[in-house]
């Protein structure tokens, strides 16, 4: 596998790989997003307890899952960047971070909008929401650290180190927040019992998760392409590419 993977450490090959992968992700995103939203909003049956307000789940859960997923893939890229000193992995970290932060922000906003009709308050110190909030801080930390450095090479490596430190801490934070929550509130009403979910609701949820994953993929690829161009802008291949009007 290593032999197959190694050429992609070269910037030009990575750029081409982004280009080949992008259409697949784009198709998945567009199709799933349209199907998922229409199905979720209009066709899925209403929940017998939460009525139509539960439809927020079709974006809340995917964005929450993807916010964690994006962080872990960012951390994996960071480990690769630090251990094998592959510059493209560093760029990938920087490309994923804003996308992950956006996912976290969506999860927080939708969580609040769901909390208001369910709990009567916009913000409840619920374990999952609190973890999401801390995750947002971690994302913002990586981003602001990257932008604080003038030299982008050091910036990339510093952001990678912080991402790895963050991912080691994330399970501890998550666990401690869950534990703190049970300590202070007793067993709170869990928003959604996933085991009891009916297939008429599960399918649109899964499709929406796929749509969000596709979206994260597409935007990450676009941003990765930008980062590669930015750091290779003096290379002949970039000039040729831009000259061709691509």
């Amino acid at each position: 596998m290593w032999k197959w993977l190694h050429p992609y450490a070269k910037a030009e090959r990575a750029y081409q790989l982004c280009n080949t992968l992008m259409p697949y992700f784009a198709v998945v995103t567009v199709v799933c997003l349209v199907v998922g939203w229409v199905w979720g909003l209009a066709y899925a049956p209403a929940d017998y307890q939460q009525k139509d307000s539960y439809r927020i789940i079709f974006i809340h859960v995917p964005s929450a899952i993807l916010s964690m997923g994006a962080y872990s893939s960012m951390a994996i890229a960071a480990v690769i960047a630090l251990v094998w000193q592959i510059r493209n992995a560093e760029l990938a970290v920087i490309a994923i971070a804003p996308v992950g932060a956006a996912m976290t922000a969506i999860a927080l906003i939708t969580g609040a909008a769901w909390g208001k009709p369910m709990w009567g308050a916009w913000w409840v110190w619920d374990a999952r929401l609190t973890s999401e909030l801390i995750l947002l801080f971690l994302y913002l930390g990586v981003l602001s650290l990257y932008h604080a450095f003038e030299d982008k090479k050091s910036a990339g490596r510093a952001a990678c180190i912080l991402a790895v430190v963050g991912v080691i801490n994330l399970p501890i934070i998550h666990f401690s927040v869950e534990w703190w929550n049970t300590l202070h509130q007793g067993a709170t009403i869990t928003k959604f019992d996933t085991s009891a979910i009916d297939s008429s609701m599960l399918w649109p949820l899964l499709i929406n998760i796929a749509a969000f994953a596709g979206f994260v993929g597409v935007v990450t690829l676009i941003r990765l392409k930008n980062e590669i161009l930015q750091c290779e802008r003096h290379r002949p291949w970039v000039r040729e590419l831009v000259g061709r009007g691509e």
Partner: protein
Amino acid sequence: MTAQHSYWQLFTSVYSKDVTLAFRQRSEIVNPLLFFLIVITLFPLAIGPEPALLKRIAPGIIWVAALLSTMLGLDKLFRDDYNDGSLEQLIASPYPLSLSVLAKVFAHWTITGLPMVLMAPMFALLMNLDSQALGATVLTLLIGTPLLSFIGAIGAALTVGLQKGGILMSLLVLPLYIPVLIFATSAIDTSSMSLAYGGQLAILGAMLAVACVCAPIAISSALKVSVS
């Protein structure tokens, strides 16, 4: 000269340099303590002096104050060495950088954490904590403050090369402090209800052990990035 002997020599040398410097400028030791004291004074003034209320919120206040006063010294932890070039000399020494870093973190703890632990009984009295909770406060501070120094040093190492790294460092570090805060305050809470709080202390101890091993590696690689 055996290798072990010289590792020890490196550790003591780096440690004693930082501690000596701190003792020459007393303010480095005294200021965080004063800050700690003032923050604790502010709370009763802000929310009222009822003993029961103070007792209820004391663990949180003491620990938040401890977090903030640890942050005060962190910015200076690597800043002077970075500015005068000592950091480069440490990197270019034949010993692993993580060992020198470990010594520096211990020195930071001796300067800021240890005085807080020693003064804790007094703060606990101010906040109306009873003797059980007082023991827990001292113990959690004893295990928790080195942990704060370790985690904070990662942030300090990442931002030492930046002109205005201080605020950014607090942004990076404070979210990572959350587990320490949760377990430490809950240990004090539990103890004031006369329950066993060994579990929380054990978790704090485990986190300290992990930080002891992992943090120096992260700190030294962050320092190498900052120096380049």
